[in-house]
């Protein structure tokens, strides 16, 4: 099962394909989380004052 593919096998094909997929999904998630966290911090800022 690991990493999140039902018929996962430890060979180059799976490692390259899923590795690149998770890399790009990670980049997208990082961008989204960064924007969300920054928004949250900016929204909290006036309350601190």
């Amino acid at each position, binding site marked *: 099962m690991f990493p999140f593919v*039902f*018929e996962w096998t430890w060979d180059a094909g799976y490692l390259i394909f899923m590795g690149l997929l998770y890399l790009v999904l990670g980049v997208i998630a*990082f961008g989204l989380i960064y924007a969300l966290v920054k928004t949250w911090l900016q929204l909290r800022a006036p309350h601190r004052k």
Partner: protein
Amino acid sequence: MDLALIPNGVQRCSLKRFLPWMLLWSLVVAWGLVSAFLCFYKGLNQTNMNHYFAFGLWITFDLSLIALGAGAFFTGFLTHIIGKEDLKAIINAAVVIGFICYSAAIAMLGVDIGQPLRGWFIFWHANVHSMLTEVSFCITAYLGVLTIEYLPLIFSNRKLNEIREFSIFGDNLHRTMAVFAAAGTFLSFFHQGSLGGLFGVLFARPFAFREGFLIWPWTFFLFILSSIAAGPSFTLLCVWVAKKVTGKELVKRGVFNMLAKISGWLLTAYIILKILDTISWAYGVVPRAGLSFMDFYEGPYGIWLMIAEIGIFGIIPAIILITPRLRERNGLLIIGALMNITGIALNRFAFTIQTLTIPVMPFDVFMSYFPTWQEWGIALGAVGYGILLFSLSYRYLPLFPQEAELNPVKVLGKAVTDSGLVQRR
């Protein structure tokens, strides 16, 4: 009635004129929905697809939409990563067009697979050696990227922007856009290529089969190049049609010239490589398969199709778009862009339909295929959906940052200088 939603500094037609326009395209969408319902309820026997034609009109439309939607990733790449500032005038429209193309393509695929409830199988039981798996992963992830790219524009709506959370989140997403543009470029590069690659690896179908570089057949690279050649032309054409329908200048003429120039040079490179590919196929793959060149051109899919694809809708638009004197003439600019996208759509048609029509077994015969009204309904429903979403986006969102400057609104004879548009830096 909806004045509060319309961006400041720009004029839109009255709701009385807008609603019939929307109704017209809603009817086309309704035709698509009825067709989709019939396909879900009664099955794919509602189509003229069969064991010969596992791919039909929908896949042709899908491949064309995905190629034409490449304007979004390529314009995003040029704007956010290369830093072509002039394209900022058109990037919002390119994103909306890309979103429409990809969401429509995925919706059509949802019907095409016949059992959409099992659509997740391709993700869970991933065959990592399949080009189609790569396409499925990439187009789904890229639709997510396009949605993220669309969000800041939606949050720029006058009313939504008054909500502080949306406004700040939209700004922050916009500032992070280079990250999403880079991810989108990566995903697009591979799925555009793999769409070509999945035909190029069909060893048993000599019409589509190609040799190539490592695991990638030449069609992989040709599909990437053709999509980035057609995408900017399609964006140009959509904006031009919007300009004609609205009667307003939406972007400066220089932006059209730049898109046409980019499109033209990429098309030129593509056509040269496509001609070389066709020659090497005709003298390599074809004789090795024990066939002759003309064996592939029979019935309704004659040699005219190749002449049209490469000659008329390939070489001619390339010449028009790369020649400054020609592309500066409005009529020729639009003809060039239209011919460019027609050529690419013909290419996708040839790979999807013509590949399947040619006999591969001694007992096979030359087949032809014509879609049913349900198939047309879903394909045209996608077009209707696109026009609806683009119309709504144009009406309620600041789609064209240069519009207010190019069409100053006069109040009591004086131009209003404060456009009030949300300008994201």
